């Protein structure tokens, strides 16, 4: 009974799947799917090398500081960084006093209640505070940005495939819409208020090119602030904000693997030793 029932169920599922396949195949041949503009013109992130590449790479603190400067002077006008606190900046090589000063001088105030009157008011951030958000809420953010809400950047490099390279490519990828594209897809013209960027998933994004001119920021360490350099530095900084424990993780991993290699070798020898008599004679 079981086998007859199974045979019928199997025949039904397998048969219907094959019929569905044939119908799909006929449709596929008679009406091949049309390529979409995203499929044709979207580009994978550029190849770019960072100090933290590879299994043992480390952050370049100078670069992270430069990237932080770009974030502070450019990105932070619209983007929040809500999972990062000012105190975390000590990992970039700033000392306690510097962190305190960075927090105090931050352009956006931390919302709080006045301890005397209880009224809601902004105050200067302290190192324990997370980076304050540039907009009070999503409605305000959308109203100020042509209806698009600038996403939080704390985790951006982990929230995209090849995130570090993605951020770099996006920031350096703005360009005029290729004539080829308009010829092939006349309806795909970038709408008013959006900007063409082939590294963005749907090719048109609301953010205007943020890094436009060499020397837009003035680096303290004398590095030339080309658009390429700024994009790379801020991509490195955002990799750190997304994965601040990267160096601890890799160091712990190396120690763990050394330990496990020794332990496993000993376990193998113990195994061989215990089985020695069984492998020779019955």
């Amino acid at each position: 009974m079981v086998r007859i029932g199974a045979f019928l169920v199997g025949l039904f599922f397998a048969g219907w799947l094959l019929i569905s396949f044939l119908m799909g195949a006929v449709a596929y041949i008679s009406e091949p799917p049309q390529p979409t503009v995203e499929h044709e013109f979207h580009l994978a992130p550029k190849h770019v090398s960072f100090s933290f590449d590879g299994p043992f790479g480390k952050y370049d603190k100078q670069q992270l500081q430069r990237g932080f400067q770009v974030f502070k002077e450019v990105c932070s006008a619209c983007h929040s960084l809500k999972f990062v606190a000012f105190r975390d900046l000590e990992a970039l090589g700033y000392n306690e006093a510097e962190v305190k000063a960075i927090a105090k001088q931050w352009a956006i105030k931390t919302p709080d209640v006045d301890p005397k009157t209880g009224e809601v008011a902004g105050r200067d951030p302290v190192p324990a505070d997370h980076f304050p958000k540039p907009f009070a809420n999503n409605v305000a953010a959308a109203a100020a940005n042509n209806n698009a809400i600038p996403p939080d950047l704390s985790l951006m490099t982990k929230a995209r495939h090849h995130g570090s390279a993605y951020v770099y490519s996006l920031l350096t990828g703005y360009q005029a819409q290729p004539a080829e594209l308009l010829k092939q897809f006349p309806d795909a013209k970038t709408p008013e208020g959006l900007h063409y960027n082939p590294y963005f998933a749907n090719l048109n994004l609301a953010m205007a090119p943020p890094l436009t001119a060499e020397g837009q920021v003035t680096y303290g360490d004398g590095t030339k602030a080309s658009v390429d350099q700024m994009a790379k530095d801020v991509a490195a900084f955002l990799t750190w904000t997304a994965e601040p424990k990267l160096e601890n993780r890799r160091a712990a991993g190396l120690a763990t693997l050394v330990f496990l290699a020794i332990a496993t070798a000993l376990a193998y020898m113990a195994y061989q030793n215990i089985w020695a008599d069984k492998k020779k004679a019955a």
Partner: protein
Amino acid sequence: MSFPWAEHYTPKHPLMQWVDEKLPLPRLVYNAIGAGYPVPRNLNYFWNFGVLAGLALVIQIVTGVIMAMHYGANDLVAFGTVEQTMRDVNGGWLMRYAHANGASFFFIVVYLHIFRGLFYGSYKAPREMVWLLGLVIFLLMMATAFMGYVLPWGQMSYWGAKVITGLFGAIPVVGEPIQTWLLGGFAPGNAALNRFFSLHFLLPFVIAGVIILHIWALHIPGSSNPTGVDVKGPQDTVPFHPYYTAKDGFGVGVFLILFSILLFFAPNYLGHPDNYIEANPLSTPAHIVPEWYFWPFYAILRAFTVDFFFVPAKLLGVLAMFASILLLFFLPWLDTSPVRSGNYRPTFKKFFWILILDVLILGYCGGAPAEEPYVMISQVAAAYYFAHFLIILPLVSRFEKPLPLPGSITESVLNRHNIKGEEDALPGMGADPQPSHAG
């Protein structure tokens, strides 16, 4: 427990004798995974995965309990508390990554464990109950993993929960009320998150309980072995301890090395970037995909694209997805061949490897976007999956002519050593060694 020649627990120390009189727990352990459990001497490395699955469960429970100490099961804060665990809790990043990748390793070893059982016929009499309980564990694991993936409340968490609970909506008439009842609302929200957290904490302990039953049921006939030939006498077995504890010790080492490589050097490799975006009910991700270990089943679900008269394609897909797992419960009665091990079943062996390839193809299609040609490929692959278990296997076991089996486990071991050219004179060895496998 299983064989009359099993070693008996004899506590020497007065304290252990006292404990044994009041509560014979050490005796139970001794008989279950100690020297008191005789095991076939010829087990290969595929028999390591049961212990490794147990280890994976322990890793999940330890890291999970610690994660729960820092987690806030509320849709407004859940995503942030997981991030806080990663950033501000001492070793929190390690717990989180170990838990997320531990789930993947749990499934890797359990899949290898299941395919070991499929190849060596471990599901056949007298071990049907072991197989059935194992499938119960597998179903519980899937439920636990699914609910656990919802907890970080990222985009894939939210939309995965929406798609999977939406499957219940495909059931006619009662489907939508059931879906609303399961979620505690019309869409995943705080109510769903809270109950998923509660169940995600509970189910691993249910799994631990069923594992005890699984091992209990295993110890009645004793472990199977790569020849599938029954144990005939003491010369065929070795005590579990120290022989297999030592071998498992080595297996655990290899497992932990591979696990550490992923955990410390590519912890997000198996995850989806979208889950680092906080859940947003107003923004649907371009491609909603579950975690990799559900891909083959997801491919079966999506393979049904055509309504069967009044039965909608979506409902067929849901039925087929559940059927693809439930049919495994009938396997002991579908495969009637008395020969257990695939090594002695030439036709079965060929179809077994086709099945492995088929499941890998299904997995690939399940992770790919729902576009052609992936849908067409998964339709053919899913058709084979059902045909394999429900049509081919019963026919093969009926018409196949198996190869001659070795006379005993010991004989096969000695034979293997002779093939390797070891010339040791072996007492008790049969005069005519088993002919090596033809073809």
